[in-house]
């Protein structure tokens, strides 16, 4: 069992390394003004960035703007990428800063899309219904967290980042990441417990 897990981890790591090398090569070409490489990099990061910004900002009307702002910085500053971090860390750090800046400017209400990421056609079986219910509650509970805590949750649970990487993306100490995660977990647990009671 342990051996199997190790093999899976090694395979995952090898896959990541190859993907990371491709990303580094693309950034190198973008730095020399290669428009095709930029489009490839854009398409590669679009789904991840879109998801991250949607979850962190909770304002769909701003997501595309911030995503394109982020990639505009990538286009203009690709020559400053220094290989010290992963390409994804570098790009997500830009996106995080842009998103925080945009959030500090806006004062419009947060949009809660209760049906996000769900497909009603699949909600037949009881298990799926419960999962659907939990997703709705979780999505709602997330709106009550500060943007920084939402970012930590998203980067950990969906983007699969290590806490050191998250600290680098958010430009804060490792302990701050752990503290934000701790508070986010505590709030989510409390919110989910109370709402589950309401549902049941």
């Amino acid at each position, binding site marked *: 069992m342990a051996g199997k897990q190790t093999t899976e981890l090694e395979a995952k790591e090898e896959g990541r390394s190859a993907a990371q090398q491709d990303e580094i090569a693309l950034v190198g070409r973008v*730095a020399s003004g290669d428009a095709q490489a930029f*489009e490839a990099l*854009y398409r590669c990061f*679009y*789904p991840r960035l879109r998801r991250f910004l949607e979850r962190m900002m909770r304002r769909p009307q701003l997501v595309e703007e911030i995503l394109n702002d982020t990639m505009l910085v990538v286009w203009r500053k690709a020559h400053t990428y220094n290989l010290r971090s992963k390409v994804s860390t570098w790009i997500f750090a830009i996106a995080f800063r842009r998103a925080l800046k945009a959030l500090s400017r806006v004062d419009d209400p947060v949009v809660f899309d209760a049906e996000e990421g769900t497909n009603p056609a699949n909600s037949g079986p009881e298990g799926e219904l419960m999962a659907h219910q939990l*997703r709705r509650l979780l999505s709602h509970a997330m709106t009550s967290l500060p943007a920084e805590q939402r970012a930590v949750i998203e980067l950990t649970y969906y983007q*699969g*980042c290590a806490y050191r990487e998250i600290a680098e993306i958010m430009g804060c100490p490792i302990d701050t990441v752990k503290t934000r995660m701790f508070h986010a977990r505590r709030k989510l647990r409390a919110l989910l417990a109370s709402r589950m009671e309401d549902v049941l």
Partner: protein
Amino acid sequence: MSGQILRFRDPVHQAAEELLPWFVNGTLEGKELALVERHLGECVRCQHELDLLRELQVAYAGSEIATDPTESFNKLRHQIAKSRPQWGRSSLLRASGRFWQHAPIWAPWAAVAELAVIVVLGALLVLGGEPAVPYRTLGATDPSPHGLAQLVVVFDPRITEAELRQILRATGARIVDGPTSADGYVLELPVDRQASALEALRAQRAVVLAERLGPGKNR
């Protein structure tokens, strides 16, 4: 109650509990991974928390709706093209920019010295270099610097390429310039054949005009 408080303050428990989210996403390594694994074997509370976090992760991931980035990318492409017309430009400018960023400290001085040498050599060339090539008019007495004579010929517009080639062969001339604004061609041939060639050309039906370039006795 007091037992719970004591366990919560246990530094090993606290450290392991803090790391659980990254145990769940599989990014823990080395000592931290070992610490969490060891602690999970003996802490029921953390085992429950782990189950909850795994459930949370599955729920959080949810199902994704694929979106096509093409429209969004096109907007950005237009934005870049509008703000800075460098989209798809040659890498030369950026490469030179990077060169100066990473060049050794003496590089700018070397470039200045090189520029100074170029300026000095340029000045010497202008002030003391070779004489300019003299301008030669059509009426000059010696139209050919190589012992060759030059004629100007206007051919009938209906002449074929084969006829033109035949005439040139017969006279021993070759076209060196033209057509001029008046459709004339400059022919070059040995000086000793100039008179006979002129006569032969004038006899051709396909030749409208044949004259030597410059003053001549047979004009």
